[in-house]
Each structure stands twice: as structure tokens, then as C-alpha cells.
């Protein structure tokens, strides 16, 4: 009986863990290529695209399933973009000796992009709430 809820739940749990392994593996691979091999985007664009697509699918899927991004804590709207911006700044510094303007530009662009994406997910969650909880 393929409709057995226990089998379905077990399959979902296992495939979810398998996805987590692949996702973290891709993340580790990207970190290795960016920070240790000091590769440019064109060198790892295939892995990056796959990583982005998979994570976007999870983020949109969970948000549209009624899960607030990053637990819905307001300080994450500042913290998460800050972490992303700092990682990007480290990546830029790691590649050479950038000017202060270049570092600032990287920080602002990375922070702004991350904040915009996060705000987009919060808007998506609000829309889900409006459609399902009113």
C-alpha cells in the first residue's frame, strides 16, 4: 500500500535529510571554492546556480507553507543581511587588497540585496497569512 501515511512520512523524512546533506555539501563546496581556491563566480556558477535554485525552492516552499522566515524574529531582518554582507566583504578582502570604497560598496550591495530578499519573504508570509488565517 503506497498510500500508507507512515511510509509516506518515513520517505519524506529520509529524502529531507538527504536533501540537507546535499545542500550543506554544496554550501561547503562553494565556501571551499570561494575562500580557499579563490575562484571567481564564472568558475563555480553551475554549483552556485544549483545551490541557489535548491535553497530558493526550500525558502519559497516553507514560507508559502506557513513557516515564518528565520522564525519571524524582527532582529533577523538586520542580523541575517549583516552576516551575508560580512561574508561577502571577507570574500572580497580575501581576493586582494580592495579600497575602502570597494569594501563599503560590497557591504552595502550585499546587505541591501539580502534585506530585500528577506523583506520579500516576509511579504510572501503575510500574503499566506491573509489567505489562510483570516
Amino acid at each position, binding site marked *: 500500500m503506497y498510500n*500508507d*501515511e*507512515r*511510509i509516506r512520512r518515513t520517505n519524506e523524512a529520509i529524502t529531507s535529510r538527504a536533501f540537507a546533506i546535499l545542500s550543506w555539501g554544496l554550501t561547503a563546496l562553494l565556501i571551499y571554492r570561494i575562500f580557499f581556491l579563490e575562484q571567481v563566480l564564472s568558475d563555480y556558477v553551475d554549483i552556485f546556480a544549483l545551490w541557489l535554485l535548491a535553497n530558493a525552492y526550500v525558502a519559497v516552499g516553507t514560507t508559502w507553507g506557513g513557516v515564518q522566515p528565520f522564525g519571524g524574529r524582527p532582529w533577523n531582518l538586520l542580523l541575517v543581511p549583516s552576516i551575508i554582507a560580512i561574508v561577502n566583504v571577507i570574500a572580497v578582502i580575501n581576493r586582494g587588497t580592495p579600497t575602502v570604497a570597494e569594501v563599503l560598496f560590497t557591504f552595502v550591495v550585499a546587505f541591501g540585496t539580502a534585506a530585500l530578499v528577506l523583506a520579500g519573504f516576509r511579504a510572501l508570509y503575510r500574503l499566506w497569512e491573509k489567505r489562510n488565517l483570516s
Partner: protein
Amino acid sequence: MKELPVRNAVRTLREKRGLTQKELAAEVEVTRQTIGLIEANRYNPTIALCLGLAEILDTDLDTLFWVEEE
């Protein structure tokens, strides 16, 4: 959230009605293994399956499932 120790009377009521695990499983459209795990308190079924079991075993949810006091 801490998982509640849910217990059930599936085995007792199934045997009382002279049903095998396989027969009960077929009635509620799950595998025999799922019924075995429910009876062994090793799998918490969904509310839909609980209702299906209650209907087949001709009982109510309170009689069929309960949370064991610690």
C-alpha cells in the same frame, strides 16, 4: 515541544473483534507493519487514521488513544 507518551487500545479492541493485523490494515488502507507499530506505541498515527481505526473498531477516540500520565 516534548512528545507526549500516547498509548492505545488498538490491539485489545482488534483481538476482541477477531481481526488480524492484516485485516485491520486492509480496512484502513495501511500496511500490516503500520498497525504493528501503532500497537507497539512506536508510531503516532495522524488524526485521519485514528478516526478510521475508531470507526472500524467501533469505538471513540478517547477509548482508543490516551496520553499516559507520567
